[in-house]
């Protein structure tokens, strides 16, 4: 896999030679975008943080990969932590930061020792004075949100906050903060030195009813059918594009790229595909995902905290065959209200799977 190719500090050396402006310009030209799901231009994030007036700036590497069905960052941290750290060093150089954190999810704690050793080795090799500490998460999905990650490192409950101010203006300890995902940072050195690097090559986490699950490096623009064949999906009925925030859809000819998916009201997000076969009832899966959200909603916004409990109740009512058409309408209405009135990405996407399931697989939602 190209993403796992080690760059052995060559990119860091190049950046030091070029200077911050030119380095950021290359990232802009190459078109690197954020791999945490939002696809925000990386160079712009760097530029915004760099331009905010402050004596100190902070970097956070978001390694709180918690989306069910997403496990690409784990692979990178296992196989190529060197590039991630090189990416952090390049970012630190470009935005003039002396302080960085890797927020590692608690479930990946077993990666900590190796990561720590790699950090030590690289900081020594580069004679860097960067302060780089690993923060161990403790099992909260919401902390993958960039404002929640800040709350969490500041010793608080992991609640998300309103934006603006954006972290690039006022982030950790009120200082301008650059937050980048693991895969984004791992790609920084590659984008800087590899001539054939482009932003279309992505790590896809593929799981579910397939014979060959795993992380695949695929081009954006690949047909779903081709992917299904590659991973040996058994009689696919649907694909979840990310288990929780994602949507459900299936069409063999579907071309997997952001624009095309957008037309179908599907978000590509972190490039996770969970295949579901024809024997499955989508209602059962909706219940499983709703259980996830009743547990993971942080509780800050009432619509998300309470709404998800009602969503689960309604789904179980449909399952017990007691529900009427009115319940189904309520389910849809409530799903929209939660999306529209929640503060963070979790609340705004947590009912996507229900809305798209009702649209495309209504036969699985039988009511009186």
């Amino acid at each position, binding site marked *: 896999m190209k993403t796992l190719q080690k760059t052995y500090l060559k990119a860091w050396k190049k950046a030091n030679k070029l200077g911050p402006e030119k380095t950021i310009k290359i990232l802009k030209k190459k078109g690197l975008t954020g791999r945490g799901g939002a696809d925000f231009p990386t160079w712009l994030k760097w530029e915004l943080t760099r331009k905010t007036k402050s004596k100190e700036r902070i970097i956070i590497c978001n390694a709180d990969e918690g989306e069910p069905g997403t496990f690409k960052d784990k692979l990178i941290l296992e196989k190529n932590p060197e590039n991630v750290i090189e990416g952090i060093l390049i970012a630190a150089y470009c935005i003039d930061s002396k302080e960085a954190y890797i927020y590692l999810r608690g479930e990946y704690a*077993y990666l900590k020792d190796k990561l720590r050793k790699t950090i030590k080795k690289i900081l020594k090799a580069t004679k860097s004075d960067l302060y780089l*500490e690993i923060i161990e998460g403790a099992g909260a*999905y919401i902390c993958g949100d960039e404002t929640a990650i800040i709350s969490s490192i500041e010793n608080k409950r992991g609640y998300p906050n309103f934006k603006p101010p954006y972290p690039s203006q006022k982030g950790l300890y009120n200082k301008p903060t650059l937050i980048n995902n693991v895969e984004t940072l791992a790609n920084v050195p590659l984008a800087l030195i590899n001539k054939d690097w482009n932003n279309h090559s992505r790590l896809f986490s593929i799981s579910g009813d397939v014979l060959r699950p795993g992380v695949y490096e695929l081009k954006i623009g690949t047909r779903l059918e081709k992917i299904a064949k590659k991973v040996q999906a058994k009689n696919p009925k649907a694909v979840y594009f990310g288990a929780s925030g994602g949507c459900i859809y299936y069409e063999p000819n579907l071309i997997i790229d952001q624009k095309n998916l957008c037309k179908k009201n599907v978000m590509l997000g972190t490039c996770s595909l969970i295949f579901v076969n024809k024997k499955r009832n989508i209602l059962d899966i909706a219940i499983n995902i709703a259980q996830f959200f009743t547990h993971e909603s942080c509780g800050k916004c009432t619509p998300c905290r309470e709404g998800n409990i009602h969503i689960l109740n309604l789904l179980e009512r449909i399952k017990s065959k007691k529900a009427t058409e009115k319940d189904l309408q309520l389910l849809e209405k409530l799903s929209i209200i939660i999306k529209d009135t929640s503060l963070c990405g979790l609340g705004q996407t947590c009912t996507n799977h229900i809305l798209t399931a009702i649209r495309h697989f209504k036969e699985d939602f039988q009511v009186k």
Partner: protein
Amino acid sequence: MQDRSAKKIKLLNVLREIQKKHNYLPEEEIRKLSEKTGIPVIEIYSTATFYSMLSTKKKGKKIVRICNSLPCYLNGSLNILEEAKRLLGIDINQTTKDGKFTLEVTSCIGCCDKGPAIMINDKLITNITKEKLRKLLK
């Protein structure tokens, strides 16, 4: 480090250490931590109770966490959960009488390609079967 914020205590890291040592956060340790850091006890509790891997109540020596997020669910995590309940004779969020095991259900642990997966304390066990589980929960 000359920088002030870098010197700031990282509560999560400290709480995780205490949790690893005792398998929960004893009140005594929280009080000690409060004295040492100047962070009020109530604030430490406020933070600690937010995270599912931190516990203010006593737990078993081994916390068995069974992943039930979608990919593991599709691979039969509920069968594993039922088997764990049967083997340990307890329900979810309960501890065995001998204090050896606590059973929990967890959100995704990132082993979606090797499901069903479970964690026993910090250790990951992937592609778990009922037979494997029987050996582990002895």
